[in-house]
């Protein structure tokens, strides 16, 4: 008897439609031409894009963008953990203070906050002073020299990110079973040991995925600092465009770089998540690389019986 598998006609239709779209996309990206100012040239001007991809101002802009992302995320995570612990504290004052912080920084747009750090601080406080509250001053700074545009950008992004990270960390801490802190307490662990050794490592499983999203989001949000005169990746491409009038190719330069870095982060996030999933999934699924290696090993001529491949997957996972 022959077995007739179920047919999926709509799958075929959908595939054909998608293939047509892909063909159109490839065509318009690579092969179509257009006449601009009497000159016939490639629609997307890949040559121009390629030319500006690695020019020094763009590379310097990338440096600033990455620096801002790293600074804002590290500061954000530190502020977030601190605020999350404060919010979960039995002290009303501590949890209230954390609540007010989160309320304020989540309740105003980050663009407005950036302008506040850039313009507001120097306007409200011409001098910043380190000293005894209501008492003598030890050191005094001029606000305009202390808070450069880069510092204003870093401060704005960090304080804003702290508010979001606080909620993410808090959700992670709450997700850990109460029995864990009881068991840790019964062994005589202090609150700090409990948090660092028992609660946070387990909370990580809940904290990591949204933090990865936050990091990817932050990389793109840094482009807002171009509005307060920081020369980041976006501002660098914009200023080239303003002199060469090749606006669209330079937008593509910026986009390609942003895409590259978000892709790298996505891969990184995948492996970090795997690391913190240890102990929660009995057997982790193989990574794409491991699957590729298995597939390569399996291809040679004779097909391997299903049972044997199954065990080989197990061994791979166990390593």
């Amino acid at each position: 008897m022959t077995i007739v598998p179920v047919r999926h006609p709509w799958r075929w239709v959908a595939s054909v439609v998608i293939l047509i779209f892909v063909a159109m996309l490839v065509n318009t990206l690579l092969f179509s031409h257009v006449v601009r100012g009497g000159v016939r040239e490639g629609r997307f001007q890949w040559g121009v894009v390629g030319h500006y991809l690695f020019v020094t101002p763009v590379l310097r802009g990338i440096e600033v963008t990455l620096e801002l992302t790293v600074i804002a995320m590290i500061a954000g995570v530190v502020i977030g953990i601190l605020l999350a612990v404060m919010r979960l504290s039995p002290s009303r004052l501590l949890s209230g203070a954390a609540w007010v912080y989160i309320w304020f920084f989540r309740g105003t747009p980050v663009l407005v906050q950036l302008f506040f750090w850039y313009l507001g601080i120097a306007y409200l406080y011409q001098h910043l002073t380190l000293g005894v509250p209501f008492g003598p001053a030890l050191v005094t700074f001029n606000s305009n020299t202390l808070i450069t545009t880069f510092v204003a950008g870093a401060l704005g992004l960090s304080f804003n990110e702290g508010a979001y990270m606080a909620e993410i960390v808090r959700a992670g801490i709450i997700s850990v079973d109460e029995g864990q802190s009881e068991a840790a307490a019964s062994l005589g662990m202090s609150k700090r040991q409990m948090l660092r050794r028992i609660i946070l490592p387990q909370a990580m499983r809940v904290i990591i995925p949204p933090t990865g999203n936050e990091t990817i989001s932050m990389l793109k949000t840094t482009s807002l600092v171009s509005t307060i005169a920081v020369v980041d990746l976006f501002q660098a491409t914009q200023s080239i465009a303003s002199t060469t009038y090749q606006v669209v190719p330079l937008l593509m330069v910026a986009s390609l770089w942003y895409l590259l870095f978000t892709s790298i982060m996505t891969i990184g996030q995948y492996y970090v998540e795997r690391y913190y999933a240890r102990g929660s999934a009995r057997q982790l699924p193989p990574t794409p690389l491991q699957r590729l290696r298995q597939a390569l090993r399996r291809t040679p001529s004779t097909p391997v019986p299903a049972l044997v491949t199954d065990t080989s997957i197990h061994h791979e996972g166990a390593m």
Partner: protein
Amino acid sequence: MTVPADTRPMVEARGVHKAYGRLEVLKGIDMTVGRGEVLCLIGPSGSGKSTFLRCINHLEKIDGGELCVDGELVGYREVGNRLYELKDREVCAKRAEIGMVFQRFNLFPHMSVLDNVTSGPVWVRRAASGASKDRARDLLARVGLADKVSSYPNQLSGGQQQRVAIARALAMDPKLMLFDEPTSALDPELVGDVLDVMRDLANEGMTMIVVTHEMGFAREVGDTAVFMDGGVVIEQGDPTQVLTDPKHERTRSFLAKVL
């Protein structure tokens, strides 16, 4: 005036009260547990057995009465006629001397079995990692899990997890072990292994307070059985007497339901 340390009871409770808001959970518990004694706490759920157990290592704060472990007040220091609440650090030091085993095991899932057992000695006592590991391997062998050293908790059965939890508590060399329904979350065929480990421990002279529904264990291993209901001790005494010939009607009706 001072009683010699080795004849002093391990746990002494006098009129212990505990309330959550308006709900009174413990309404004056008197209990004495001698050194090397195995005391089994039985009673219906909600009777306050677990709460009382948790008061002993200060996981819960008592609202009234007096609770002493090894001759020292739980959670307070008596100076003159004042009670000073203990600092967090002092509470931790006291807890480190009392082992506790939970109904739902509460092993640390992100750590291997070996790391679970060494966590107390290494982090709390700051013991050398090598020596702690050797000790942990011995303890795991004692509970029959020598081959599970590098496993993670969720790769083990419930019974195995609970035995790891016992080894983890023993790694701190406790002077008192508290068991909070240690076999209630286990499949019936896994209960025996855990009870065997507890029986060995009792035979070695460990002071134990066991909240349990295992009447066979209470009768065989227990030195004392205490029946609690509604936040008070209804009756206590020799386990065989309490479990087979109870004096109180409440005890009798409870036993009729569980046996």
